[in-house]
């Protein structure tokens, strides 16, 4: 039986982690690679890197980051952020990334999901989907949550799977940053209606939130960022707690 996965997410810009950390033992406090290594050693099941570099050099810095991370850790990792070309996906996977996450680019060009999963296998293609409640409807947002689309949450999720996405990374914008817990209602409905693994994102503020989501939905993984970066919650501590509460995790 598969274990439930715990996934730290790192927002990076020019190779540095953007959201600050208070880890004192890192040689370079903002180094994405060193933070990745630390999470690997603490028992993270995989990592997600979200690149928000906006410069012309974006492509080059992301490839360098992937190479350095792949050299440093021996667990799988996903990269995302502004990826829209098959060639870019190929270079990132060949540099050592296991998966790419696609968000705005697949809304603009849904066929990219088919092309990418045919070329690299659906296991390498993660549909990153941001939803927000607008007048009682779940709407899809793109461009880092800045732009609303006409797409309805659940039907877009299903469409990405039909087109070949191998996993859904679902971020609830209503919950993100609140530390009130994940959007279990939507996550339950989603994980019951698609056949691919679902990763919950947005809202984790306490170890009980992970337990609630694993107990009440069928998601296979929970993602969090600041909670881990600021050492509010250790990954080992979290996994021990989940294990004590009869959640199957890798310790």
């Amino acid at each position, binding site marked *: *039986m*598969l*274990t439930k*996965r715990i996934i730290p997410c790192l927002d990076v810009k020019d190779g540095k982690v953007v959201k600050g950390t208070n880890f004192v033992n890192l040689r370079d406090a903002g180094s994405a690679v060193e933070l990745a290594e630390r999470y*690997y050693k603490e028992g993270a*099941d*995989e990592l997600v890197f979200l690149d928000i570099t906006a410069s012309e050099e974006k492509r080059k810095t992301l490839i360098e980051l992937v*190479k350095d991370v*792949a*050299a440093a850790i*021996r*667990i*799988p990792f996903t990269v995302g952020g502004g990826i829209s070309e098959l060639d870019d996906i190929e270079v990132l*996977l*060949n*540099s*050592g990334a*296991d998966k790419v996450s696609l968000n705005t680019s697949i809304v603009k060009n849904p066929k990219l999901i088919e092309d990418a999963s*045919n*070329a*690299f*296998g*659906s*296991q*390498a293609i993660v549909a990153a989907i941001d939803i927000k409640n607008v007048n009682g409807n779940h709407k899809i947002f793109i461009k880092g949550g800045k732009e609303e689309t006409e797409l309805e949450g659940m039907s877009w999720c299903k469409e990405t799977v039909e087109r070949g996405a*191998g*996993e859904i990374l679902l971020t609830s914008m209503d919950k993100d940053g609140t530390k009130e817990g994940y959007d279990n209602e939507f996550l339950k409905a989603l994980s019951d209606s698609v*056949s*691919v*693994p679902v990763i919950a994102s947005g809202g984790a503020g306490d170890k009980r939130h992970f337990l609630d989501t694993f107990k009440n939905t069928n998601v*296979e*993984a929970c993602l969090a960022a600041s909670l881990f970066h600021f050492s509010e919650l250790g990954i080992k501590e979290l996994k021990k707690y989940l294990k004590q509460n009869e959640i199957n995790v*890798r310790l």
Partner: protein
Amino acid sequence: MITIIDYGAGNVQSVKNALDDINVEYQVSSAEFAVCNADKVIFPGVGEAASAMQKLNLYNLSNLLRIIKKPILGICLGMQLFGKHSTERDTNCLGVIDANVFKFDESKVTVPHMGWNKVEVVKENKLFDGIDDNTYFYFANSYYLENNEHTIATAKHDVEFTAAIEYKNYYGVQFHPEKSAEAGIKLLKNFIELC
């Protein structure tokens, strides 16, 4: 010298990184002579069976892989290709092992089978030497090789399937040892030092 076969269907970089941990000499190549001259061969693979077989044929490697006498380790799709037939686009594989490849049942479990799963060793072997039984390894596969007489370890995802094989000089693992933390590196080390 270890040869990692690069036929355009594998995450070769991660395998290279893992071999760097073990301090072993390796080369990456799709050339027949590089496979023939190697002491041991690593045969990775991600993606889809039909195009992987096409690429092996294109590089003139499929017959060589059927008759090779050097220890060879197939990883993920690499191991599946040792089988006879895959239902993935109705593909005839190398046929080294008398067993077939099927898709997990989407109506019962999540597909792809993605994440860390427990591996149970069912036959004494060198690949898992010093690795505890029921250790977790990282998998990312929609298809699986059915259990057969050469299965040395199994995992379960609705069905029980082959996690590792050993047959003469042929070794294979369904999971990704290069992405399975310390246990995965240990397994690669065992292949290089003991098999």
